[in-house]
């Protein structure tokens, strides 16, 4: 049965979301990483639970977007909203769930005085890059650089 985005509710992250987030990540990546997600959820909860969101459908967590508001990194003094990780249950993608979580975060970021939202994306992950472009992300003057230490 088609799922309308209107049935989806978005709320701040909570400790009881750890298992569901771990499961969504497992569906997406094929890897079970409970320790990793316990650490990440605890990190974002102690930073600001309002700055990370989960999406629920019929009381079941079907998506997450982990973010926080910070400044002073990479020479950027201004306070920005940073989106680190997000995911939607592959079985119900394409229903606007990611967009709903993103919109809720933008509202929160504006409310706490941020003027910009930032993230990094691996352009090889085309689905992720497409989603970020669709919600309005564009190229930044800040470019991620790296150097391999294995040479």
């Amino acid at each position: 049965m088609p799922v309308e985005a209107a049935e989806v509710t978005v709320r701040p992250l909570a400790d009881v979301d750890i298992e569901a987030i771990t499961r969504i990540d497992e569906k997406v990546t094929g890897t079970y990483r409970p320790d990793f997600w316990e650490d990440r959820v605890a990190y974002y909860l102690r930073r600001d639970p309002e700055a990370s969101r989960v999406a629920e459908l019929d009381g079941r967590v079907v998506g997450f977007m982990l973010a926080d508001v910070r400044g002073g990194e990479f020479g950027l003094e201004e306070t920005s909203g940073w989106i680190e990780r997000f995911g939607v249950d592959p079985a119900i993608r394409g229903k606007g769930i990611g967009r709903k979580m993103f919109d809720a975060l933008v509202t929160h970021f504006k409310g706490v005085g941020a003027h910009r939202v930032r993230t990094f994306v691996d352009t090889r992950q085309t689905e992720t890059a497409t989603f970020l472009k669709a919600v309005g992300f564009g190229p930044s003057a800040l470019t991620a650089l790296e150097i391999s230490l294995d040479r």
Partner: protein
Amino acid sequence: MNVDTTHIPKKYEDAIAHWVKHNFQDLPILDKYWDKYFPTDDAFCLCAKMDLSTSKTIEVGDKKGQAKAEDPSELTEEAAKHLLAIIRAQASTEFGSIQQHQVTLERSPSDQDKFWVLRVMAEELRHGYQMFHMLTSRNWEKLAGVKTEDMVEDVLAMETGSHVLEAFNLPYDSFVDNVVFSGIIDRVGKYQLTMQKVCAYRPFAQSMPPMLREEAFHLAAGVVPMRRWLEAAAQGDAFITPLQIQKSLNKWIPRGLEMFGDERGGDTNVHLGFKDMKNAEAQSRYYAEVTKLLRDLNLRFLRARYPSKSPEDTERMLDAIVRERSAIDGTTYDDILKMPHRTFFRRRGEPAFLMVSVEGDPIKDVEEYIRHLAQVLPSAYLASRDMSQYRDLIRRVAAGEVTPEQAAKKSPVMKRKAESVCPCSKGVRWVDTDGAAEKLPQVATNETPPGGATFHAP
């Protein structure tokens, strides 16, 4: 959230500093190692935080749509006294939990667990400070019939055994209690704070969002260690077992359910616009949330024990063990965490002093009931004064000497509050009206922690 920070008058800060010296000796350690355990987080601030974006209009109750009160004098006498009781109870829980955590903090099996709980304690201190801001920033004296100093004194004088709510009168038996308490009892705090966000007294409503923000981590400080302990237990670690965690859950969940108040009550809070849910509704939601939490913990345990099973097979296995109460692939029903029945081991509310098993089955014989408690509660707790008094009371209820209602009023048998509670010889009161200053410990500056040092209990 548009948050403003403020401070309470110096004599009350001094009183808290003096209280910290006697009840929260490890606070300075948090300052020293903050950057090691919380490297990117803002420094801890012992201050009152007010969310200025809170609604100015009453959101629920008889006066819905009218302007919220900004001062106690704008409340009716009945409402002001009711709210004052809520503030007193809230303050009691904040200071009370620190007293409980401090006793077993040093027994933490890992430094991370210890510093997470230490941060929880510091933030509870801030919440207590916040409640003192409620008491000291406005004049409640006419309504309360006592001086502001005496209201603060009353809270600081409370000890484990003389707090307002029973959950804060039970000593911890081990560090398992520090963790289970954070995951179970702090969760009730989340519900209370959430309900109070609508409060018709605006300064109280403004206090809730910053407290809630901090409370979210407190729950994680309980849930994450439980998940890790269950993973270790699944892989053969015999030190902290599901049975130990279950017994601690059996100890705390009944007290958590009672913190919502009598199942038949809560109307006054809603009518007065102080909360947006009645007791039974809030308690039911809490019960459902903890039930889900235990299911997630069980899945964590089973997936660690059977890494080759798919998530779907693991869920089916869990359902079968619970449904059939039988062993599957070496995992027994006793290895699985289970929610105690809502009526189990209750002393307040609708099911107070009913004799039912942890699974909700009635037990007719009081001695059989006592033996059942001995099987399902932590052994160290059984040897406590609290349990001794409970056993005496339940026997008297079973013998028809007292009614459950009478027993509820007698439980717990509170410590007699001494006139002078401060253990040091400097004074008889926490609030020193003569102005002898006690310097408030500085908490969590951004000092660099000792580089590369492995921290062990100092």
